[in-house]
């Protein structure tokens, strides 16, 4: 079968991949010698594996496919390669001959593969293709694995190794010259729309077919331009967004509403004007996958503007734990040098002390604003020398007003606002030593013990509750906050170790209000 014929037979099912199919078909054809190694690369959802499988099946080349993402260790991968090869060669019963199904190292793999391939009957001696899917995602891979696998084809003459990568390879990353690469680029706008339109519009009850065929192409391209293109969405995303939005888009037609402007016929532009709002609200929420999908049925009669999905009830914690979490939050969000001003017991109630605190809160907010702006400016113009720029600490009227125009600082936490979050601002959660948490706990306790002599027991109780909070990942050791990769099991909790709060401030604020603590009193920009 000629490469052209392969491509034409497959392209009805997988359109827009003619070039890649022909390349693969000509490289892997059973009648011409293949390169010993072949690299197929492209980002996810570009049909790499599917096309490769389809081409191999059409060409009827004997082949084995190993999904590297299913292999836990390097050894596991090698064992799987051997096993799948035996299976493809129908030599499964002879597993004891070839290393008893065990393979510890790549050099052993070469020997075993050679034996297996040599054991084939003479009429089947020919090309054998070994596909290693997502090999760049292999866990625990030794760094020589890729280049070693690339050599397999040189050692075993009848073998062709196909490496499928989902990242763009560096030049000469296999340490050998002239390995043919087949690239699967992301689908262009035209291709993506073509693919979506090659299947019919989702069926909506009560919608005339004629309207559907007329409006749907426009709808699909609008969805691409507004939602999928800017977010680099893949084809499955594109399809699911279209499926979800289409019934809402044509809802006016189904409900028998009459368009404005004296015309009885709905055309695309009228529908678009009527439904502008879906692209803003539902469209954006459609981009984000949630574990619990939106409950509103797609065929809802009226597109509801308000969010119908109530956020599930926020969890409530026991009294003591709430207080600890609150103190952890405050410790994370208050600069340490201001502790004496905010938390000292000696100046807690006088008017001047309050004014002083309010002043510092405002000042902090302005500072963080200024920092955020500065970083924004630095991002926009990387050529600006960083040296010589001092943090703007002077409060002018304009900075104040701009500071108060934006949202309150209490909303910040992981992520936070788009411009405000960052490693260095006042508004991101920072780590704190445990002793500071204890001290702040004593400062904000709404029911302080009547006799100050009996406070001593609290610290030990705090540790116990903190352990539970840590298990819930509400408060985490600072090291694991930065690098989540650390194992969950054993971290030492020394007095000097730093901790960090790990949840959003709004929720903690609510909780703290429940037990009579006003968080805003101590935060930058709170209470204003």
């Amino acid at each position, binding site marked *: 079968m000629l490469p052209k014929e392969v491509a034409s037979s497959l392209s009805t099912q997988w359109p827009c991949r003619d070039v890649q199919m022909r390349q693969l078909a000509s490289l892997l054809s059973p009648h011409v010698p293949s390169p010993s190694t072949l690299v197929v690369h492209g980002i996810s959802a570009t049909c790499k594996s599917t096309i490769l499988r389809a081409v191999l099946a059409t060409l009827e080349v004997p082949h084995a496919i190993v999904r590297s993402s299913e292999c836990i260790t390097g050894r596991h991968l090698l064992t799987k390669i051997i096993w799948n090869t035996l299976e493809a060669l129908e030599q499964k019963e002879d597993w004891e001959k070839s290393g*008893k199904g065990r393979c510890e190292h790549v050099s052993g793999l070469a020997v075993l593969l050679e034996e297996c391939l040599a054991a084939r009957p003479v009429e089947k001696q020919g090309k054998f293709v070994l596909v290693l899917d997502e090999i760049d995602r292999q866990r625990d891979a030794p760094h020589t694995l890729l280049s070693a696998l690339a050599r397999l084809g040189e050692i075993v003459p009848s073998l062709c190794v196909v490496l499928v990568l989902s990242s763009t390879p560096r030049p000469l990353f296999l340490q050998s010259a002239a390995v043919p690469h087949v690239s699967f680029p992301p689908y262009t706008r035209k291709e993506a729309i073509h693919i979506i339109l090659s299947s019919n519009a989702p069926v909506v009850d009560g919608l005339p077919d004629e309207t559907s065929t007329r409006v749907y192409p426009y709808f699909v391209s609008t969805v691409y331009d507004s939602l999928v293109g800017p977010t680099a969405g893949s084809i499955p995303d594109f399809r699911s967004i279209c499926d979800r939005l289409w019934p809402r888009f044509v809802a006016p037609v189904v409900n028998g509403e009459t368009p404005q402007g004296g015309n009885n016929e709905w055309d695309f532009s009228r529908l678009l004007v009527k439904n502008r709002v879906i692209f803003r609200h539902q469209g954006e929420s459609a981009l984000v996958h949630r574990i619990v999908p939106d409950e509103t049925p797609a065929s809802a009669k009226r597109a509801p503007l308000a969010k119908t999905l109530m956020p599930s009830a926020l969890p409530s914690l026991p009294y003591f734990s709430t207080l600890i979490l609150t103190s952890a939050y405050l410790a994370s969000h208050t600069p340490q040098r201001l502790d004496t001003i905010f938390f000292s017991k000696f100046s807690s109630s006088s008017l001047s002390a309050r004014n002083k605190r309010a002043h510092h809160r405002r000042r902090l907010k302005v500072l963080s604003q200024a920092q955020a702006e500065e970083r924004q400016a630095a991002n926009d113009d990387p050529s600006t020398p960083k040296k010589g720029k001092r943090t703007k600490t002077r409060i002018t009227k304009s900075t104040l007003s701009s500071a108060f125009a934006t949202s309150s600082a209490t909303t910040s936490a992981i992520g936070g606002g788009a411009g405000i979050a960052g490693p260095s601002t006042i508004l991101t959660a920072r780590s704190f030593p445990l002793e500071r948490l204890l001290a702040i706990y004593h400062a904000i306790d709404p029911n302080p013990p009547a006799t100050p002599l009996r406070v001593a027991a609290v610290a030990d109780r705090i540790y116990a509750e903190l352990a539970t909070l840590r298990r819930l990942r509400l408060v985490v050791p600072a090291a694991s906050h930065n690098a989540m990769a650390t194992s969950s099991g054993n971290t030492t909790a020394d007095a000097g170790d730093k901790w960090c709060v790990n949840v959003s401030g709004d929720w903690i604020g609510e909780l703290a209000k429940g037990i009579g603590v006003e968080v805003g009193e101590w935060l930058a920009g709170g209470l204003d």
Partner: protein
Amino acid sequence: MDADGLNDALGLSNDKSQNLGAYIYQPPKHRKSAGERPSKRRKVSSTADKDERPDRQHFVPLLNGDENAKSVQLRYDAYQELWSKQEHKIQVSQANSWVVIVINYSPGLKNILEDVDAGVLTDVLSFVRDTSPQTCDGCIPTALVTVGSNVSSLSRLLSRLNGQLISAGEGSVVVLESGDAPNLKTTLKNIIRATVTNTDGNDGYQRFLTDRAGPRLLGYDLDLLHDYVQRKGTKKLVLALRDSEAFDPGLLTDLLSLFKSWLDRIPFTVLLGISTSVELFEGRLPRSCVALLQGKHFEVQEAGNCVDRIYETLQTDPDTNLWLGRNVTSTLFENTSDYFQSPEAFSRMVKYAYMSHFFANPLAVLLANPDSTVLAQNKFCEAIRNLPSFRMFCEDLVEEGSINQVRDMLEVDEYLIQEAPKYLDANQQRMQNMFQAVRVVHTCLQYTQSSKKTNVSDLSIRALSGELSESTIVEEMVATTKTLDSDKLDGLLLRLREIIMGPEAGAIQEDLRTLLGTCVNSGPLRSGYNINSTVTKTTVVQQRILLSKGQADLSEPAVEYTNIVDRLVALLQVHLTETLINPQDLFLHEIFLFDLRNPLKETFAPRPRFAIERALSTPFDYLLSSSDVTMTKVSAKQPATAILYQLYLDSGALVNVHDLWQAFYGVFETEEAGGCDDRVVMSLFYGALSELKAFGVIKNSRKKTDHLAKSAWMGL
């Protein structure tokens, strides 16, 4: 420095009496010497150890050690028996309380017992049955179960789910905890092993590994699971993560992406137990991981409910003979509301309370119904006579005029031993009646009030302090009962009849039934106290409006009904005032009422940090001082670490080591007038410094090389 001073300082002196004030922990001695390899842990049945000392006494003799062995053993046995009974009750009540949760979840259900399997379980089960990757857009079907802070409630749900799936032959549930998942390899191994042992047992797992065609696979290869699923014909394999938040997010992502790629061969369903909220959980996972999951949200909440239920069963059960007093109760519930506490922890605290009662109270032997020979120890009677309640009882008897009885009780041991169990029985009966009355009040409140929730524990605390009968709660309850119409009253009587067994209650119900039988068609009857039966009259007198309330004319049945209501209210009031007594007034209440706040509170809230700080800052609170004068300030007689710690307390956040050394040396210099050896003091200093470092109170400062940073402050 002379030799004595040095020995004192180093703690080397042979005079061991110095240490008598402190407990010294000695690890149990092993038979093998330190150099040998520790023996391998093997599964050996522990019977051998038990046989060594069969007669070991668990409790120590009390009454200054004069208590006889039999009585000690009786106390121990009584405790064991009591706890095994109560434990059984707790398990039953926990099972039931889960039913209550189920009912709360779906309020439409009425009959509690018939719908055990309803609610969350049915929902989750039908979710597991109905969903498949195809219905979830190719994602892994996921059930998110929020359980609040009560993680243990999930395990009951899971075991029932497992039972149902296995019995239907559809699949099974594998429970995974964060402790089982240190890394991907071990996690997979654990999952595979748990899945196979769940249905085939441990031997089945071994056979499964060996009896396969082909090479032996690695333990973490999901091919094994694939094989298993094919052999068993499993349709649903539910993987439940009990504490999902505690899993490492990176590991979870790896695991889920692995499941996703196997989803076409192994029918996974993931069940995540969440303690906080779905949003928080979702927010913490990477987007790529969230994109793999799709499913539904279920809710199981309320640990407090469960605890209330346990408490109610323990206290109000008719065959209870030892009760928890007011202080203990309030301590228990304080813990539940203030801290993360599971029902299991709650029952452990209750167990400890019972144990400490039998352990420390020699009179508790009376609860074991001993024969009089056991009690015939002279100190025992003395102990009874020293009870405050005995004194009160005698005073009451004297006031009543039965002086002879008092004299007998004070002087004749036999008489006292004979009489005490009788009084004990009688008073225990009164306690039981009291708790029945609490249940009556609770039932009435539940029936009459819809808005405010009053639980048994609140009522019990009031009743145990003798305040319930005069409280506003009861007054309001009686007032509302008066206004009930006949249908509701009938329902209330039906519920009360289970608790009050008096003939009067039965008679009232009879009368009400006959009354209702005569007037079937007139709808529910209203009593004269009902708001609808009073009529407000408006009269204008001298241009003023007078409002006067008056009884509307009541129909014949209504009058009769009002009579019945009056009788019921009277019965209730009499019953409550009779039974709701102050338990502290009862004779021998020290025996059947445990009300000491202290061992419980201290035991479950240990204070290691406080103890260490105290030991370091005032060491002679723990160690015996060799000199007679109690010293408050630093002296060379104290252990070196304690001296250094006190000096450290005086300093700021950064301490210059040289200054510290100077001060330390100064302490020794002033005490030893004859001059002391620099090198010895220096070695003490280094030892103390490294000990403080081991405690974690100091660390090296990065700001200044010759400074130490303070990392712990005293009194936090």
